[in-house]
């Protein structure tokens, strides 16, 4: 099964880090990706720029509405994601528990959902 591990933490914890701590955390994350790749669990994943760089887009009645900031205020902010291949939830949870920011914030693990097959005829647009 494929699982997405969404990495959340309070950005102010990161802001409070020294250069050295921030460097070490990034190195640790690189090591984690390397390990997951070697084991065949890592499909893809990226770290994200801080929340202040987020932009939200909505379309209502054909009109595109753009606003600054995230869609919802949360206690912890989305900081990155992994797409993982795991046998089942137990394995996914074990892998997610090894993602370094797990000790700073929360890793939300969600199975991916396959979209249904495309209709044979008819184009929705």
């Amino acid at each position: 099964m494929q699982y997405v591990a969404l990495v959340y933490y309070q950005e102010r914890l990161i802001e409070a880090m020294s250069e050295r701590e921030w460097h070490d955390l990034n190195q640790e994350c690189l090591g984690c990706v390397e390990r997951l790749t070697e084991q065949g669990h890592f499909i893809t994943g990226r770290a994200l720029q801080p929340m202040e760089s987020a932009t939200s887009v909505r379309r209502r009645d054909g009109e595109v509405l753009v606003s600054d900031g995230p869609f919802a205020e949360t206690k912890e902010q989305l900081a990155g994601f992994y797409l993982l291949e795991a046998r089942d939830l137990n394995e996914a949870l074990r892998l997610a528990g090894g993602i370094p920011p797990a000790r700073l914030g929360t890793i939300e693990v969600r199975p991916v959902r396959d979209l249904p097959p495309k209709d044979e005829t008819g184009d929705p647009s």
Partner: protein
Amino acid sequence: MQVQVSIESLYRQHAPRVLATLIRRLGSFDAAEEALHDAFAEAVSRWPGEGVPDAPVAWLIRVGHRRGIDQIRRRQTARQHAHLLVPDESEADEARDIADDPLRLLFTCCHPALPMSDRLALTLREMAGLTTEQVASALLQRPTALAQRIVRAKRRLRAAGIPYEVPDAAELPARLPGVLGVIYLIFNEGYSCSDGERVVDAPLADEALRLGEALADLLPRGEVFGLLALMRLHHARREARQDARGELVPLEEQDRRRWDAGQIRAGLAWLERALALTPTDPYTLQASIAAVHAQAPSAEATDWRRIVRLYGALQQQRPSPVIELNRAVAVAMHDSPEAGLALLEALADHHQLVDYHLFHAARADLHRRAGHREAARHAYERALALAMQEPERRFLARRLAALDAAGPVSAASGPSGSAAPGRGSPA
């Protein structure tokens, strides 16, 4: 008629075990449940004529598996892919798997990815084969809410990819408390089954004990021993919990000669092992309380001070209004009914207790002992309106009637009046 009764009791006794194996073999809770019902339907039609087979569980697994595969094959013809579901293990492996299946089911239903309330609901429903009403009562929830919860929990098991397995050694400790909580609830359900005529449903309590002991083999930890001690010590009282007419007898009025000495010995032995490893574990503390009762010659001669202390420690480990309720009752026994009532009144608005019949029964009892007849009547009526189980209802009705028969309340009985004659606070 004989065979009919025997199929019902076999269902209650064996359905979870058959289901546990069918889930593994068919790879789905829903397919397994359907196959289970098919298997029992076939049993209902065949056994009255052919007789009950020598190994009914194996028969039910065989039939259920066959029917389940037929069902899946029928559905899969419409799909592109088909999985082969016939186990290709050796007979010895399969026998070991079948023996492990109830634990597999238990750990799956108790998976931490499920909310605790879902784990309890799902396990009681799937693992113990209880009705939704019984599960709802055991969990102090409404039946409709509980039914939805079970559907959601099963969907979540499937969608999240929760595996059907016993966790490995590294994972076991974290997974244990949820499982113990569930086993204890199964045990309690066996003790006071809702809605029914019976006070005691021994097979269910036995099932909980069996699960607990299997778990103790798998994972010899203090928490498991503590739970087993608690269950054995409660189990020891089961014969004394009802009189010859099947009426409920409260702990303090039980004929202690009817307590099962063998169960008490077994309970104390488990407790000793638990105390050596996890003395402050909630189950160990509760077992310690049960052990005080088990070793006291009478309610009066019980070390209530120690029980109050143990409930206090328990409240610290696992704060709960029900534990505070029990502590209040112990305080009433040790100190005075008024002291207990003061603690109970502070709990009266708690949402978990507002509709909990035992809370109102306890209040009624303390008011009765304190001589507050009107308040006692009020609380008994409230408890009676909430109690589901017939013996409990009859017990409450008797107490209510006795209250009326007692004649007018003497003007002398006030807050300073002594506890009810014949018992109450020990010297």
